[in-house]
């Protein structure tokens, strides 16, 4: 995983509550056995006017001109501004894979679904939760100012607006550390290998039926 560094990025607003992972990446693209290449199909049903198929050349497909990511002013955006309960529904990690592959490093919303939240951090995407009124204000500012950028500083847990306003956010220490250092969870967990083995032995002695194989 790449280290998460401070950056300034264009903000794209997706003004819609309960954006589910089916909407982020429709199921036909889940047939891939790879982790990459999902970016062209991010928000496929909103972004294109036709029905997408895996392996298709998306540059030839009709774009929906009304969709935010198709508007020139949001080209190259790295911060997605969203509404409440973003990422609800299926556990597909293809959703953060698609966001990351498209170029998003940060999603800001009033709330996120739990599984999506975990999956995003494991792929180097920072999710920032701000109160609803702050998110409302950001939507208004993005709307009013073409080229609106936010300065995202994870180290100091703050976002700085173009006017210099500082918005602080909470993030748990472990997730922050992993993002900043670009750490692999599995390697970290295996440092506790002895503790896991000891637990496993005790667990098996207490509840041997949990370790039974098929008859």
């Amino acid at each position: 995983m790449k280290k998460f560094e401070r950056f300034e990025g264009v903000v794209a607003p997706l003004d819609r509550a309960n954006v589910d992972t089916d909407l982020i990446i429709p199921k036909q693209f889940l047939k891939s056995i790879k982790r990459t290449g999902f970016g062209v199909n991010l928000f496929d049903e909103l972004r294109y006017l036709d029905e997408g198929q895996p392996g298709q050349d998306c540059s030839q497909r009709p774009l929906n001109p009304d969709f935010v990511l198709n508007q020139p002013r949001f080209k190259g955006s790295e911060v997605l501004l969203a509404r409440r309960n973003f990422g609800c529904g299926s556990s597909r990690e293809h959703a953060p894979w698609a966001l990351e592959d498209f170029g998003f490093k940060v999603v800001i919303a009033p709330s996120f679904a739990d599984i999506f939240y975990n999956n995003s951090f494991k792929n180097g995407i920072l999710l920032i939760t701000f109160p609803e009124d702050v998110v409302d204000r950001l939507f208004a500012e993005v709307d009013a100012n073409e080229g609106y950028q936010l300065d995202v500083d994870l180290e100091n847990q703050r976002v700085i607006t173009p006017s210099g306003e500082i918005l602080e956010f909470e993030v748990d220490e472990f997730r922050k550390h992993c993002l900043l250092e670009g750490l692999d969870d599995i390697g970290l967990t295996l440092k506790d290998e002895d503790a896991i083995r000891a637990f496993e032995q005790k667990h098996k002695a207490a509840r041997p039926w949990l370790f039974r194989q098929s008859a």
Partner: protein
Amino acid sequence: MSGQTLYDKLWNQHLVKQRDDGTALIYIDRQLLHEVTSPQAFEGLRLANRKPWRLDANLATPDHNVPTTIKERAEGNSGIKDPVSLIQVQTLDDNCLEYGIEEFKINDPRQGIVHVVGPEQGATLPGMTVVCGDSHTATHGAFGALAHGIGTSEVEHVMATQCLLAQKMKNMQVRVEGELGLGVTAKDVVLAIIGKIGTAGGTGYAIEFAGSAIASLSMEGRMTVCNMAIEAGARVGLIAVDDTTIDYLGKRPFAPTAEQWEAAVADWRNLVSDDDAQFDKVVTLQAEEIEPQVSWGTSPEMVTGISGQVPDPLAALDETVQRSHTRALEYMGLQPNQKITDIKLDKIFIGSCTNSRIEDLREAAKVAKGKKVADSIKLAMVVPGSGLVKRQAEAEGLDKIFIEAGFEWREPGCSMCLAMNADKLGAGEHCASTSNRNFEGRQGYGGRTHLVSPAMAAAAAIAGHFVDVRSLPANDATHAQEA
């Protein structure tokens, strides 16, 4: 100190290590694998030159991509016409073979939807931690197991370490008290709960479902309820262990051996919340107030009773809700204040990890028996949850009832719940579906999903539009939930 909730007990029994930063290592007893969310995890193991920690904790079966027509299934993997789907299913076969993981392959009679297969095999047991790269893993909580969906990075993490990095959730109890009316099923209960607390109502919580109406449900019904905990935002749904749980488990292939049985049962009896346990939030519903439910929108919280109507978006107080309702009605092609019973259907889907177990098929068959699917219905299909459910249904003659009524009787898989195989809705088609999600495009590009119980889906198939299953003659439908 107050007592522990069921969730607290399960958490404590699996806590390997609590770290100072608030995260914990939780030991995982069972991981279920399917073809869609596992290939990148196996690839990750391979690239890092790691081996699975404990092979016998894993059980795999292909379900999302498998075709469901009898003709295609007779050909095994070669019956999968979509080459991309085929690669995914073959990749699961190859990975399981390479690493030595037990797999029920496409034509194994035990194959089926992972969340039907696990419990059916006794591979899900009370007191276990169960994970799967699938959000509907919450299903297994019906057994007093701590079960939830995980992402593919976590699938790889569990394979490599037998542990999951987790943070403790908060405790919520949803009580459903009283007696369910005739024709009102577990599906209606959980849809009513979601309608009440919303799709984010359970975010951050483990929900324990309790109360007399929940206790009276069969294991199949309890699985339906826990299955949709995620549609209320909760990764975990739980139900306390009781006689119903224990009776279900005896003699299942992975269940404890005879010599371990007594000790296991004694241990399982503790898997209930203590009387003085404290919940962070308690929500109560009265069973008598729940009527058969139908979703009208594009989120499971957009649901109402069969006697209700499509809401007027402008009546919503919150602007964000107004906008989502307006958008939902536009997508669904419905009018404000339209009666639910006036919604006409094009297709009927009875199946999915929510409602494809034997009891679900019995309920639907009772309604369909001796009737005909309406001419206006283009396709009505019944997709059993597993090969064993299919076999049982056939032994009871349910397949004949469905076929005579004009339903297609299919082979097991996820099918049109998410339409990764060939079973899908066309644009603009309305479907009465026993599945769990009515998101835009979920069942096919432009498709319009209405979530209902199996009995309600069967009744809609016969009528061509939604009808109140309670209004049907007593001899066929109204005793549906007593099966």
